[in-house]
């Protein structure tokens, strides 16, 4: 199992998994998001190649209403 912090909350996932698989687990596949892994942006083109490690901190953001 891999322990990840996603948007500030602890999660456990069956490893190994890459970003693409994480998004599938979180039901975010195909959604317009941007993702950071340990403070670095992971570009969309790398989602299937970026393998996550135990202890990684992930931020996933979307556009919401604002002024």
């Amino acid at each position, binding site marked *: 199992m891999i322990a990840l912090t996603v*948007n500030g909350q602890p999660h456990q996932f069956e490893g190994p998994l890459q970003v693409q698989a994480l998004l599938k687990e979180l039901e975010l596949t195909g959604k317009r*998001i941007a993702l950071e892994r340990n403070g670095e*942006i992971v570009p969309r083109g790398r989602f299937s190649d970026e393998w996550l490690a135990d202890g990684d901190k992930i*931020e996933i953001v*979307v556009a919401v*209403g604002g*002024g």
Partner: protein
Amino acid sequence: MTANDQLDALTIAGCTYRSRLLVGTGKYQDFAQTRAAVDASGAQIVTVAIRRTNIGQNPGEPSLLDALPPSRFTILPNTAGCYNADDAVRTLRLARELLDGHDLVKLEVLGDPTTLFPNMVETLKAAETLVKDNFKVMVYCSDDPILAKQLEEIGCCAVMPLASLIGSGMGILNPWNLQIIIANAKVPVLVDAGVGTASDAAIAMELGCDGILMNTAIAAAKDPVLMASAMRKAVEAGREAFLAGRMPKKPYSASPSSPTTGMIGR
């Protein structure tokens, strides 16, 4: 001669826009109302905030950009909620990734949560970093003419001084500073923050602003869609009045509009 679309377009960072009214997407009842208000306003540029997605809640839920597709609108991500340059830069890098490389952004670095007044020191720092990273930066700022000019010199593509506090609806508190900023600027000047009703928007345009960004004035009106329509007209009216060149003010004597000769009974 009326100001026609082609001749009086607003140009920001090399792109032209028919509408000089930019609107925010916060504080609405739901996405349907947001879209209806944006449509009524005629705005082509809309701001959005960047926030963590809700994990594990309603995966089928529609999102804001379904209601306001980037194919139809210019989406302008903001840095609302950022209190230092690092957070603002980080937020806009994420936004650029989110929006497939679109790099026209709104920078705001706040100084305190009560007034939401900009922290101008951090704003200058963030602007420098962002411009070096090839962002096209429209920057929310105080109405200090020196700082507005410095932001322009750093390379911001538009300066956006506040008229009054964000969400306050207090209107144009210092038209004099605004006019100084407009006179000195070589980039577009847009009033951002504090507009409350249609006359405020018209006043700002009459002063020579290139455009206006507003959110609460529309979203918090009793009838937001109707207010959006009013704002559209106010921005157009104020702009035409500015281009038409107003008559001079005469504070101490009148000037009759009707002939002073040929009156009957004399």
